[in-house]
């Protein structure tokens, strides 16, 4: 009886895999032959009309911050939630880091490359609409400064230079400013977080001050991501 039961469970698993594979095959076949009319694809519209409508030469930025900006708001809120939950879950305020201490040579070199990283992060954030990059990448590069200080010196030195309250404050500015910039679209009579439709002055594509609200939204997301990642790293590395 037990052998028959085993064989039945094995057959059951194999049948599940086969039915799932068949389902995926049918779905893929349908998606592939969705329609011969190529005008139905949305990506055609983004590629052909995106630069004129939004004024940003980086098409990924025009999708992220103009067409699907509401999606980006949810993604950015996730980092805020993660930082808040980690700050609650790890209540240790004074703790030691394990791991080998570095020599003074490493400290001197880290001092040399910190201004370089700061300028690189600011360039990535503010030129996000005309070059590869954007708010998320620039925020990660800016948070590397705090991570380097934590690694080479200590947690205390890193929290002496960038205070935890200041980091919280900067993250809140990023979160609130994003929503306020979105509300500007409603005041001009169009939808929430609309940029190109609301006639914010798209300017000439390729210049620094162009594409309407897009550089400001990039700045808000950069501040938010950099502060959030620094809080997450500092609270995870404390151990006792």
């Amino acid at each position, binding site marked *: 009886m037990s052998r028959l039961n085993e064989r039945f469970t094995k057959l059951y698993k194999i049948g599940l895999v086969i039915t799932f594979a068949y389902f995926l095959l049918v779905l893929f076949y349908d998606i592939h032959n969705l329609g011969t009319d190529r005008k139905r694809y949305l990506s055609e519209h983004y590629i052909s009309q995106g630069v004129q409508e939004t004024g940003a030469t980086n098409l990924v930025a025009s999708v992220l911050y103009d067409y699907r900006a509401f999606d980006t708001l949810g993604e950015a809120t996730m980092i805020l939630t993660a930082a808040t939950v980690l700050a609650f879950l790890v209540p240790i305020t004074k703790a030691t880091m394990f791991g080998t201490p570095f020599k003074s040579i490493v400290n001197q070199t880290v001092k040399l490359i910190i201004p370089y990283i700061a300028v690189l992060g600011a360039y990535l954030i503010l030129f996000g609409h005309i070059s590869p990059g954007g708010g998320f990448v620039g925020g990660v590069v800016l948070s590397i400064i705090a991570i380097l200080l934590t690694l080479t010196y200590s947690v205390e030195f890193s929290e002496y230079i960038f205070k935890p309250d200041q980091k919280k404050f900067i993250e809140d500015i990023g979160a609130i400013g994003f929503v306020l910039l979105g509300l500007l679209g409603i005041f001009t009579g169009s939808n929430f977080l609309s940029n190109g439709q609301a006639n914010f002055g798209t300017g000439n594509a390729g210049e*620094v001050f162009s594409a309407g609200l897009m550089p400001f939204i990039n700045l808000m997301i950069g501040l938010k991501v950099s502060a959030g990642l620094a809080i997450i790293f500092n609270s995870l590395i404390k151990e006792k």
Partner: protein
Amino acid sequence: MKKKLLIFILTLALWFVLAGKVNIHVFLLGAIICSIISLMLADNVFSFVQKKHELKGFFKKIYYIFLLISSFIYDVFISAIRVSRHAFEMKPSLSSRTVRIKTSLENLNSNAALVNFITFTQGSIAMDFDHLNRYYFIHWIDVHGEDEVEVKKALISKHEHLIAKIFD
């Protein structure tokens, strides 16, 4: 103040290189950002320039910096050819040894710069650094006789004089 001004000029030059165009908008944006960076980071983190340095001496040092970089690239290629010759031999004939060398440099920046030189010059790696007695532990890859030891010690001391003229 001198420190902040120098960091402001360096970061503004870096900003123009990264932006890729020279424009009035780019200059205004860069001036705001570089002033914020130099105000925030100059005192606490970045202590590259000492206060005793004169501005006149700074232009004299550019010649030495150019000399340093050219000797640096020359040394990298020479040592890379020697190591790659060992890699393609039929039987690698390595005779490595570890040596302790005392330095006379006192500044911490110059010690950190010397580590880069020791790691890239002819067949040597800086393994460790002793703070109190100022010893370097150096590993050499191919030293066959006692004569070569003296030659290589003289080479390291030559770089040490060059660095002492710039930083100290």
